[in-house]
């Protein structure tokens, strides 16, 4: 984002707020980003809301007539370069209103690389003072209020709330969805313009008594002080989300962003500035988690949830160092003979207070806080080391997250681990989700190929449930397809699911890819899997997942688990 360095301000410009003075802030392309509410009366113009986004020349034309507005002195005045050595620029001009021929003293000054201010005064000398305090509260990129303005207005409102003058004070926190992608791919110039258009749309939904501020980045806050129930705030939020989601046209490009909103209302959700802003922020966080493009009011439960998450995050950050992770293994068994072919590793976290946690309880958090890759690497290393204690015929299977794939270091890391623990590559199976194949990223195929070159077997996990098409099986020579356990469960009562199972088995057979049926829990399911032609099975019916230390009994060759139960 372009951060314009504010110039030192001229000392004697006219302050807004009095009836006989007005201020117009406009950007480099001469478009109005702020107009004081005194301006319409002073210059006989339409209301200030409709001035926003207009070309400053058009406003001059309306106020002073075409003849004055098109005079070369005006265009020179407007185009005057903003940076010159020797301090701030302050250029005076005398004009006459078109409507009633009053004399107006206009002064132009620049407040930054990006913005210029025109002030207007109809002659009263009383109002000469610094406009610096006003500009300190403006966001130089968009011309709307900044964080300081919001904080000041919020403080004032909370005082008025305390004195009974206001019934409630409402804060909306808004965050753009997908803005970063636009900023990164279309350039900061486009990103900046988008933020200006967003501000224009936000401003168009607000009343004069409401305050809009850009808090930083793509985050905005709106302060509502006029009497307004929750219905008003939630209707406003819905309208804002609708408006922000509408298409933008910028420099010939069509683009879309979304908006998530969190709402907090004083006195209910906080009585101090910090408490209220924190509540609004938590509500926004909840909205973003709830699928984005929605608004939510703050609820005390959100604070509790955030507290639990912080605790879990704190614990998770220590877990690797404190060796609280462990691997459990479940057998992959030959469908016909019943002998063990390999073991699938799955991660467990032995939490000191909460006991043994399954990945579903912490993996998403680990991804959010950037621990997915270190944990994934630990799993790979640990599984390979464990496998060196098993009979040579038994493979170890490890699932790898898409984040690990994106890191591009996966193949060299696997190579390093195999050499360090002296495990032959063909005893390791790396399981990937079908989702990674959908990424338009040639690195995925490169990594998969590099893994195969190490002798590692590459397996497609959870097949039959997701979005992958059969054609993807042809694009890369997978060693095995792991059929998702949910398909097995569905086969119970559903002939179509059985047909899918059969089709996958036949497909695997034809392509020379082994098929593993997951979720086999009953002898009936085992029989079905055998008859449909899957080569390998896995599930509670064969073995449950057990810690590495309890595996020894499985390896006794005389008692394959399936024959014992058949």
């Amino acid at each position, binding site marked *: 984002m372009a951060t314009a360095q504010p110039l030192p301000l001229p000392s004697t410009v006219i302050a807004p707020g009095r009836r006989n003075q007005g201020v117009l802030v406009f950007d480099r392309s001469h478009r109005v980003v702020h107009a004081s509410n005194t301006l319409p009366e002073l210059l006989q113009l339409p209301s200030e809301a409709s001035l926003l986004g207009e070309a400053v020349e058009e406003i001059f034309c309306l106020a002073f007539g075409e003849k004055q507005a098109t005079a070369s002195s005006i265009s020179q005045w407007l185009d005057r370069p903003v940076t010159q050595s020797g301090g701030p620029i302050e250029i005076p001009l005398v004009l006459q209103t078109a409507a009633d021929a009053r004399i107006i003293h206009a002064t132009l000054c620049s407040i930054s690389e990006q913005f210029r201010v025109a002030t207007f005064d109809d002659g009263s000398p009383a109002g000469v003072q610094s406009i610096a305090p006003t500009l300190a509260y403006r966001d130089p990129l968009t011309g709307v209020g900044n964080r300081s303005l919001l904080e000041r207005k919020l403080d004032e409102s909370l005082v008025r709330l305390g004195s009974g003058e206001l019934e409630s004070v409402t804060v909306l926190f808004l965050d753009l969805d997908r803005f970063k992608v636009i900023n990164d791919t279309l350039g900061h110039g486009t990103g900046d313009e988008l933020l200006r258009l967003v501000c224009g749309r936000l401003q168009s939904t607000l009343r004069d008594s409401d305050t809009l501020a850009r808090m930083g980045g793509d985050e905005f806050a709106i302060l509502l002080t006029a009497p307004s129930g929750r219905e008003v705030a939630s209707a406003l939020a819905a*309208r804002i989300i609708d408006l922000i989601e509408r*298409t933008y046209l910028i420099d*010939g490009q069509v683009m879309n962003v979304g908006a998530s909103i969190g709402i907090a209302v004083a006195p209910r959700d906080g009585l101090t500035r910090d408490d209220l802003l924190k509540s609004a922020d938590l509500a926004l966080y909840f909205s973003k988690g709830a699928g984005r493009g929605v608004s939510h009011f703050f609820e005390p439960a959100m604070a509790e949830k955030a507290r639990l998450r912080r605790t879990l995050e704190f614990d998770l950050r220590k877990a690797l160092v404190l060796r609280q992770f462990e691997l459990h293994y479940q057998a992959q068994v030959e469908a016909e003979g019943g002998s063990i072919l390999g073991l699938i590793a799955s991660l467990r976290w032995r939490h000191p207070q909460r006991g043994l946690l399954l990945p579903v309880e912490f993996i998403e958090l680990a991804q959010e806080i950037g621990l997915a890759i270190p944990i994934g690497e630990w799993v790979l290393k640990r599984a390979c080391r464990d496998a060196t204690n098993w009979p040579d015929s038994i493979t170890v299977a490890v699932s790898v997250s898409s984040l690990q794939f994106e890191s591009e270091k996966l193949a060299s890391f696997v190579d390093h681990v195999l050499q360090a623990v002296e495990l032959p590559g063909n005893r390791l199976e790396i399981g990937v989700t079908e989702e990674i194949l959908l990424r338009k990223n040639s690195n995925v195929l490169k990594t998969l190929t590099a893994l195969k070159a190490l002798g590692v077997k590459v397996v497609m996990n959870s097949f039959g449930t997701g979005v992958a098409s059969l054609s993807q099986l042809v694009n890369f020579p997978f060693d095995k397809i792991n059929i998702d356990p949910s398909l097995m469960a569905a086969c119970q009562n559903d002939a179509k699911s059985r047909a899918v199972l059969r089709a996958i088995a036949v497909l695997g057979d034809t392509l020379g890819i082994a098929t593993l049926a997951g979720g086999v829990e009953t002898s009936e399911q085992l029989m079905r899997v055998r008859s449909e032609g899957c080569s390998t099975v896995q599930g509670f019916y064969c073995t449950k997942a057990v810690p590495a230390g309890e595996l020894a009994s499985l390896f006794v060759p005389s008692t394959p688990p399936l024959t014992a139960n058949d």
Partner: protein
Amino acid sequence: MGEDIYKILYCSKNLIEGEHAKQDAEISQILQSARRNNREQNVTGALFFNSAYFAQALEGPKGAIEKIFERIQRDPRHGEVTVLSSETGGERDFPEWSMAHVAPPNETASATMAVALNGALSHPGASSAGVLGLLRSLVIQED
């Protein structure tokens, strides 16, 4: 002129409530202000509406089109705005119209337009040529 013509076509859901008369009044106000502003900025185009949809084509200098479009986007009288196409270059489709009002001459034409817009809103991109073609043919029929 020198500058390439920039063209956009969008459709949206009509959110104007009330009787036909009120709708007609709103629309004629929209058309009036559009015509006044467009003429100054060398913008031409066509607007179709029925009780359910709007479809509008705008063509002219890029800066002017983008500014007009942004103003349209802020208008609460419609929603679910879908841009069907945007392109630079080529000839104007509505050179003589600062903003043509496309009024289907009969029930069949009106129904055809509604079907095309319904399709366009569910599959943007696929049927933009159809919507534009209908707009053009209906403008000509109105002559």
